[in-house]
């Protein structure tokens, strides 16, 4: 039997610029007790699809054609009240942001009791049921957890609680919109396993939206690929990913950095003909005399945070004694889950964070002990790129001013700023017309390029890139990595590349350092780390990073 059936669905939005067709003749079915995945990049119409099913389209959106049938009921003709009665008990949803899904001022137990408001059961019985659900998602000591508040749980636990809440009323359909995107690789695997287990237990169907191909491949029975508001391909997951028939699917699979199992200097992009790609071998590092002075030398670096109210301050070790050398032109990948201290270490190397112990020297200068004035030239030599491509650009400044900012800060005279900006933009593959745009008018990939242009503006010797591909579509990740690889070869840059995505760092880093609880648990050449990981944590991380779905490559 089919739980959800969508036929020829077309949705359009009336905007100032005219009618925008967000969905064009979308058709697919979600069979009973199955998990169907929807893959697509940002802007492909995934969110519009979900909102159409839930009856939550924005005011300017209309369903032009087609039908949405859920358990035999035609949803497009239901009124608001009937739709409200369906949402929650019959169709429930889990979203990307676990913080946003839970009400911060109500205890978890209270929120779970509220969900059961339609039932006549006693409060005690409702709490019992809530506790059972929390137990099912492996929240330790579920009875006690009911009286706790959302902020007392970690991100992964919050997402599990959100799943428990969504499935508590035993809905017929769960809509999961990128539920694991905000989680670390290790947590992602745990959450996916749990979701699958509960789905079988509850006996519901799941519509699972993700841009992560590996996740879809692991979880879903069937998959539909969306592109520009259309379903370009659908079928059994193995079949679609194993032998894709549509050009877009083939390209998408090939572009996923996780699908390139051989290290390559250049990754395929959406512009390449599918199948035409050949890996570009990574040159081995040139031999250097043993006594070469490293560019960056970190010895026993320690960072301690002091938190909590006055007089009861607690010390928290962010980085606990890390040492490594980085030579000119070399790239090191810092890998680990969130909270492992990667970002803190990087910030300390750029002196955005004070050290509580150890030394950091850059070209022999002690970074941790320089006066603010002496630090100024160092700021030209070390450039940083931040995690959020758009959020790291000042929102009221135009791209032109943003790229010119380093020149202004360091009062560099005798440069034609307009020409220089255009040159930098063209180096990162953006036309001069971008100079007049504001950050919010850029896509994630474009904003990232602006960040790169600004980082290379003053010809730095070291770039510290914090999760430069996080939040980008798979198809754009490859382009950004190509750009970074290209620039660092041309400009002879050294780079610290921070990520939790091993598949990405593989193609960029010469060496990889695995960080766990503020320490390096393992460090070595990239090929060696992948081929023969020594530390258990490295192995765990490698197995948690879901490989791309097997495409015949």
């Amino acid at each position, binding site marked *: 039997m089919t739980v959800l059936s969508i036929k020829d669905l077309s949705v359009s*939005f009336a*905007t*100032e610029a005219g009618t*925008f067709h967000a969905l064009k003749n979308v058709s697919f079915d979600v069979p009973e007790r199955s998990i169907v995945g929807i893959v697509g990049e940002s802007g492909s119409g995934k969110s519009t699809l979900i909102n159409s099913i839930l009856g939550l389209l924005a005011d300017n959106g209309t369903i032009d054609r087609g039908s949405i049938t859920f358990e035999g009921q035609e949803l497009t003709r239901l009124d608001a009240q009937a739709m409200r009665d369906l949402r929650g008990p019959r169709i429930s949803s889990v979203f990307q942001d676990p913080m946003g899904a839970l009400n911060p001022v109500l205890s978890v137990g209270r929120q779970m009791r509220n969900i059961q408001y339609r039932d006549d059961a006693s409060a005690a019985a409702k709490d019992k049921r809530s506790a059972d659900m929390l137990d099912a998602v492996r929240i330790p000591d579920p009875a006690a957890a009911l009286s706790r508040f959302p902020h007392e749980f970690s991100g992964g636990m919050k997402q599990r609680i959100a799943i428990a809440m969504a499935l508590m009323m035993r809905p017929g359909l769960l809509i999961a919109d990128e539920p694991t995107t905000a989680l670390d690789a290790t947590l992602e695997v745990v959450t996916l396993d749990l979701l699958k287990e509960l789905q079988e237990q509850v006996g519901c169907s799941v519509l699972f939206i993700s841009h992560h191909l590996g996740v879809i491949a692991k979880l879903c029975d069937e998959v539909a690929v969306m592109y520009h508001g259309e379903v370009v391909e659908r079928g059994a997951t193995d079949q679609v990913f194993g032998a894709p028939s549509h050009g877009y699917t083939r390209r998408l699979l090939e572009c996923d950095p996780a699908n390139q199992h051989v290290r390559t200097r250049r990754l395929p992009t959406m512009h390449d003909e599918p199948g035409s790609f050949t890996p570009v071998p990574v040159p081995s590092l040139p031999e250097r005399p043993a006594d070469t002075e490293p560019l960056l030398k970190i010895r026993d670096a320690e960072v301690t945070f002091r938190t909590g109210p006055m007089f009861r301050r607690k010390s928290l070790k962010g980085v606990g004694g890390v040492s490594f050398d980085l030579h000119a032109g070399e790239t090191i990948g810092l890998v680990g889950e969130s909270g492992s201290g990667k970002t803190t270490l990087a910030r300390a190397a*750029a002196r*955005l964070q004070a050290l509580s112990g150890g030394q950091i020297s850059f070209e022999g200068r002690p970074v941790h002990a320089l006066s603010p004035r002496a*630090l*100024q030239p160092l*700021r*030209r030599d*070390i*450039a*940083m790129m*931040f*995690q*959020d491509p758009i*959020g*790291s*650009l*000042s*929102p*009221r*400044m*135009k791209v*032109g*001013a943003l790229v*010119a*900012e*380093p020149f*202004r*800060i*360091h009062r560099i005279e005798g440069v*034609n*700023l*307009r020409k220089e*900006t255009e040159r930098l933009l063209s180096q990162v593959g953006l036309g001069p017309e971008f*100079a*007049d745009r*504001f950050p*919010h*008018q850029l896509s994630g990939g474009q904003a990232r390029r602006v960040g790169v242009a*600004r980082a290379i503006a003053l010809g730095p010797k070291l770039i510290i890139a914090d999760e430069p591909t996080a939040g980008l579509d798979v198809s754009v990740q490859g382009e950004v990595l190509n750009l970074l690889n290209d620039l660092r070869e041309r400009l002879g840059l050294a780079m610290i590349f921070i990520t939790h995505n091993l598949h990405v760092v593989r193609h960029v880093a010469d060496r990889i350092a695995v960080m766990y609880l503020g320490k390096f648990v393992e460090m070595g050449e990239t090929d060696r780390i992948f081929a023969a990981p020594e530390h258990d944590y490295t192995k765990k991380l490698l197995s948690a990073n879901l490989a791309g779905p097997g495409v015949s490559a």
Partner: protein
Amino acid sequence: MSATVSKPSFWRPLRRILAEPLGAFGIALVVVMLGSAIFAELLASADPARISPRDRFQAPSWEHLLGTDHLGRDLFARVLHGGQIALSVALGATLASLVIGIVLGLIAGFGPRWLDNLLILMFDAIKSFPTVMLALALVTLFGPSLTAVVVVVVLVNVPGYARIIRTQTMALKSAEFITAAESMGASTARILRMHILPNVIGPLLILASMDIPVVIAIEAGMSFLGLGVRPPTPSWGAILNDGFTAIRDTPWIAVAGGLPIILTTLGFTFLGETLRDVFDPRLKGRG
């Protein structure tokens, strides 16, 4: 800002304000009020201070467009000249409050914790005085004058303005684009000026333009109590109060004093709301 990369244009925001019906209406009102105050001498030939007992309580006519008051003074001339006082006090005091409020707010929001605590303590102390009490105390100390009015307005406004700037500065302090500026070597002054101020000033400008009528009311109130403008200098508040005592028989005096206050309030409120829409690029071009 050097002009090589992007030229900040004054005319573009103005054109966008004029494109909004409310904004155009607001600007029109503000321009009319400002213009009639600036050109008061040209528009009203009568002397606003000339007392003429024979012409007492005359209804509006071609000779006296808004009538005359209990001393036979021409109300049209008094309203226009009163506008000079009202608007210069309102604009001057608001501008001074803005500058001081922004500077203190940025310091409190971006500076060390102890300085923030000290400033907040000061703001709360000032806020705990009722406006009228504060005004009475200051006038007792320094004597009634326009300066006293301005000082009262600044003291009343600064804590609120500074708090708005402080809260928003704190929210932005740990934003990635601030850390990015820091990593490029930008000085604290530059971070505050280039990266924080443009992002926090919008709401304050709206609030300030909506506060202008409040300032006008403070000036009128203080003038009524004899703490502000001394007679015979004309002031809207004074005219309104003159009219109040005789509202039964000669309502046009209260209208002459009240109407400019209403029109100025509306003008600056509409202008303020349109300003917000124009200055926040994230609100435009959605979708």
